[in-house]
């Protein structure tokens, strides 16, 4: 019998705690597949952040350091500088990376640290119960924007992939989604590219991964998935914003 589908080696055989319809699990899988393909599992050090992604070490069969909220890029900097031969990535949510950790992500990116950042944007603080995030869309109701995000008071959502692409230190920046098979296949390609940048020592790579959050959006998984393709993709366009080496 020919096996056509299997669990990536870099993932543990464990059921995740993620809610039904959440895209975290899919992104975990894509990241693990890329790890397998480059054969970096054994020399990978993952940096977990605070949020739904905190249990990184529970699902990936790799060494992991846990970082304080928002500080993963600084922790990853320390790890990579001390162990330049290791493969280092952070996996952060939008509250973590785009709010409390903006300073750390901007400066790690600007230094061109040879690390990969997976940034999962689901327009809300998932783990703390669906509060407004820096990526929450204008008008979106959350538990701390009960009347909808107000542009004049809360500002507009931040487009991190575009913002970081402007920095000299960033080698690769792309935004991906997994709401349909086509986008998923493209997401897989871009994540692999981001990994390749680091494997080849070509600099800082960044993936913004649009994710659903059915639980906190108050939607069923299907409509949440649809929202990613409609509302989210129209404000956060998918694409590659920086590809220095043309990989």
């Amino acid at each position, binding site marked *: 019998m020919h096996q056509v589908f299997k669990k990536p080696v870099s993932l543990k055989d464990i059921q995740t705690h993620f809610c039904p319809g959440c895209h975290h699990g899919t992104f975990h899988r894509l990241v693990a597949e890329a790890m397998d393909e480059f054969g970096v599992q054994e020399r990978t050090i993952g940096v977990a952040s605070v949020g739904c992604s905190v249990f990184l070490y529970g699902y990936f069969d790799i060494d*992991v*350091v846990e970082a304080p909220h928002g500080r993963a890029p*600084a922790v990853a900097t*320390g790890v990579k*500088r*001390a162990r330049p031969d290791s493969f280092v990535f952070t996996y952060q949510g939008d509250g973590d990376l785009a709010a409390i950790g903006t300073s750390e992500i901007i400066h790690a990116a600007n230094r061109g640290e040879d690390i990969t950042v997976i940034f999962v944007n689901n327009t809300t603080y998932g783990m703390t119960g669906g509060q407004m995030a820096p990526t929450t869309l204008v008008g979106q109701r959350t538990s701390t924007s009960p009347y909808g995000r107000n542009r004049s008071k809360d500002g507009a959502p931040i487009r991190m992939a575009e913002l970081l692409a402007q920095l000299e230190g960033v080698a690769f920046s792309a935004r991906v989604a997994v709401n349909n098979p086509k986008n998923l296949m493209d997401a897989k390609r871009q994540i692999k590219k981001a990994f390749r940048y680091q494997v080849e020592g070509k600099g800082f790579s960044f993936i913004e991964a649009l994710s659903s959050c059915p639980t906190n959006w108050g939607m069923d998984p299907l409509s949440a998935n649809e929202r990613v393709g409609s509302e989210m993709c129209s404000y956060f366009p998918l694409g590659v914003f920086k590809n220095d080496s043309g990989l």
Partner: protein
Amino acid sequence: MTQRLFMKGNEALAMAAIEAGCRYYFGYPITPQSDIPEYMSRELPKLGGEFIQAESEIASINMLLGASATGVRAMTSSSSPGISLKQEGISYMAGAELPGVIVNICRSGPGLGGIDASQADYFQAVKGGGHGGYHIIVLAPSSVQEMYDLTMLAFDLSDIYRIPAMVFGDSVIGQMKESFVPNPRPRRELSPKDWVVRGKGSGAQRVVKSLYLGDGELEAHNWKLHGRYGVLKEKETRWEEFLLDDAELVVAAFGSAARIAKSAVMEARGKGLRVGLLRPITLFPFPEKAFRAVTERCKKVLTVELNAGQMVEDVRLSVARDADVLFYGRPPGAGSLPTPEELLVQIEKNY
């Protein structure tokens, strides 16, 4: 004998860090400790090490956390306002049992305060500083020689106990130059760091973390940490005793205050007053037993600090029940550094 050098305390500290095997430094400029990053930025690249001037003290401490998690010796330094920013990372390091050396060349506050010598961060240093009920090792040098020697000790103790260690100085100790001997790194038995993340290789996954959510896990983790603080108290407490045998008054002071106080004690002796000095070298663990022992006989302690009274509380908790603990100190700031003459007046007044 190794040749004696004449250098600033801050420079001696940086030199000692390198002698101790530190090759990774992460920091952010702030007076009066910038000599340390300047020294490291000059010397580390020559040794194949890494120096990063980070975007903030928060980033610096987290770079230290990351580097330390891989098993290397690493350091950050700052002064009071910057140390406040580092507290988050220090708490995480304490929780994750990560070694690492943090230098506080303490300046006066609160807030932006001023750059003058201060010991006002004593509470912050010895009582945990950040959230969560932990301690770090705190060493208080009172000379350039000790800036050198205690920095090497800080790296060793931090590695042995897997507890972050702080070297706690101020601008007197950091900025003054003194003659000192650059001793070689002491030989010490250190356990292999089998907990570090380096990529799992073909072995089992390793995780450095402070999150414990399972029923009873976190309590057990905390008891383990506190057990280790107990061992520290038993084995690593250090202090200096000066003319205590016949003392009728014991002056208690650490760091630069102890240097100034020591001259005052000598002056007092010259006047026939039986005065001694007890100088804590480790602020955590605090030399409780030394204070207890001396106050079994001598019932009067005058604590002198460059603040409005902080260590005095630990002195009170440590002395024999019937001992009197007095205090002299001034909130630090420009013009408030006491002189030996000033302390002599206090000794005479309280004798």
